[in-house]
């Protein structure tokens, strides 16, 4: 199987008016695709359409070479997992319980976890390095731990495709690096196809294989980080003053080179 997920002339948006039109992207196993763009450019709208939160306005989404429209909700649940920006407020659930909801597509009628499910949940928690908080109340752990737990939830859903909407926003630098290392690990060692949005451009060159730059209601440019990170592109994307883009790009690339994103599993840190 060549492409795990691709879109053809996809138009996305709320209601009738497209927010972004003519999106053509494709992601192979082991590839990380980062979508960048200004606030409100429609990055999340693209992701929400892929996970069926929003109806696509036009075009086609293909998953494992199949038209997405032909897949049932249950099929989709086994193909695509996701982490959203919206906070969840589950009552009286431990972090383990929250991660375990990722096993939903695999459990029986009553949703009781089998020994294998429990193993998968524990492994996922270990992968993100959140072992210490597994039995704590989800609503009482820090934002950073919560984000790890949501990522673990997506991991134990055991899908080939992962959709991550700003997985690093509002976290401190070390949490950001941890989360991104896990994402690298998932793609490079587990062969998952990852589509994610991200605001922290300084991580993108070290993280992503492909970058999609969204501006002016369309995909402005698709390419490798080296192709995208030019002064001219940044100026266009974020409506910067002429000249500032080049300066920022140089800084970004230099910073990114220093990042230890090898795709290794981070050691669990006790921070709650």
């Amino acid at each position, binding site marked *: 199987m060549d492409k795990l997920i691709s879109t053809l002339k996809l138009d996305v948006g709320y209601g009738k008016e497209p927010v972004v039109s003519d999106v053509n992207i494709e992601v192979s196993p082991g590839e990380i695709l980062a979508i960048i763009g200004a606030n409100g450019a429609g990055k999340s709208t693209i992701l929400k359409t892929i996970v069926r939160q929003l109806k696509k306005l036009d075009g086609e989404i293909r998953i494992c070479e199949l038209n997405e429209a032909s897949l049932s909700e249950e099929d989709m649940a086994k193909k695509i997992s996701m982490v959203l920006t919206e906070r969840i407020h*589950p009552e*009286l659930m431990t972090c383990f319980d929250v991660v375990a*909801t990722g096993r939903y597509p695999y459990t029986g009628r009553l949703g009781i976890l089998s020994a294998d499910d429990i193993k998968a949940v524990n492994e996922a928690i270990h992968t993100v390095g959140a072992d210490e908080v597994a039995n704590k109340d989800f609503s009482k752990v820090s934002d950073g731990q919560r984000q790890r737990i949501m990522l673990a939830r997506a991991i134990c859903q055991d899908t080939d495709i992962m959709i991550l909407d700003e997985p690093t926003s509002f976290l401190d630098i070390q949490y950001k690096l941890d989360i991104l290392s896990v994402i690298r690990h998932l793609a490079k060692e587990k062969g998952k196809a990852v589509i994610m949005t991200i605001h922290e451009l300084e991580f993108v060159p070290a993280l992503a294989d492909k970058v999609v730059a969204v501006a002016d209601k369309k995909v402005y440019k698709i390419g490798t980080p080296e192709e995208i990170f030019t002064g001219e592109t940044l100026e266009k994307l974020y409506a910067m003053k002429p000249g500032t883009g080049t300066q920022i790009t140089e800084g970004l690339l230099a910073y990114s080179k220093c990042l230890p994103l090898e795709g290794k599993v981070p050691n669990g840190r006790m921070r709650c």
Partner: protein
Amino acid sequence: MNSCRNRYSLLFIIMCIILAGCFCLGLAVGSADISVIEVIKILFTSAQTGSGKIIISIRLPRIIAAIILGGALSVSGYLLQIFFGNPIAGPYVLGISSGAKLFVALSMVFLLGKGIVINSLVMVIAAFIGSIIAMAIVMALAGKVKNMSLLVVCGVMIGYICSAITEFVITFADDSNIVNLHNWSLGSFSGISWDYVWVSLIIVVLAVLISFFMSKPIGAYQMGEAYARNMGVNIKLLRGILILLSSILSATVTAFAGPISFVGIAVPHIMRGVMKTAKPIIMIPACFLGGAIITLLCDCVARTAFAPTEVSISSVTAIFLAPVVIYILVSRRMNHG
């Protein structure tokens, strides 16, 4: 994991024992003085003495009705709370019970006026239609007012309107059958016959079982719509089923016992505290048992507190459970600023 399971099992066993205790207590207390030992003798020999008749044809159906309908009400409230994603929901405070009450009263007056004696199934159907209409109004309002507390205020107002119309209907109808309606319209288990018990048993057992087997998608829905959909849950279908089941349950209660206040909203909250979980697979049976126990106890108080005069069950549940509701409202306000 195992310690949790043991804890749940222990709590369920304790609740069953309490329920059995309340059952015996309910049979023994009342205006006629019958001792517990005598009650047990009557149950096992079904003696046709005077006390035997009181036990078998008056107290027993009443107690069983309180168990079934109390449980039903609590599960109905739990399902509504899941639907609205909010613990301040229940069939009484949202005016759904009152909608059911109005329709039962209207259909009774209408059919009795034509000389037709209404049977239990027709009452449930009328109550169900009333519930669904009240629910539709509440849901239309929910689309406009996003604030749950405000929605509850609207629900209470709907309840007042429905109750007022019911009172008009009852007051102007002078048929002797309808005069009894007054007690019922305030909420009461008195005069429940075996016929009612069987009908409600069948409906409630079915609806609660279906809810129980829906606990997996309900659990997913608690994670929010977006994640639930990503897990493969058909959201529209689930929401429809939640509304249908909770309406059927609260309609059955209202048809036979009138509107009973605050059980639907307060018991699920108490049970979350007792069980220390929100998992539907635990909560649905726990709500049923808890609702049964609390309603049965309140009914005992209603019968005996001012014996031989009976108080309406709603007055008793209000005294015990309205403070719980106030507590929920206040503590939520503090948590969310």
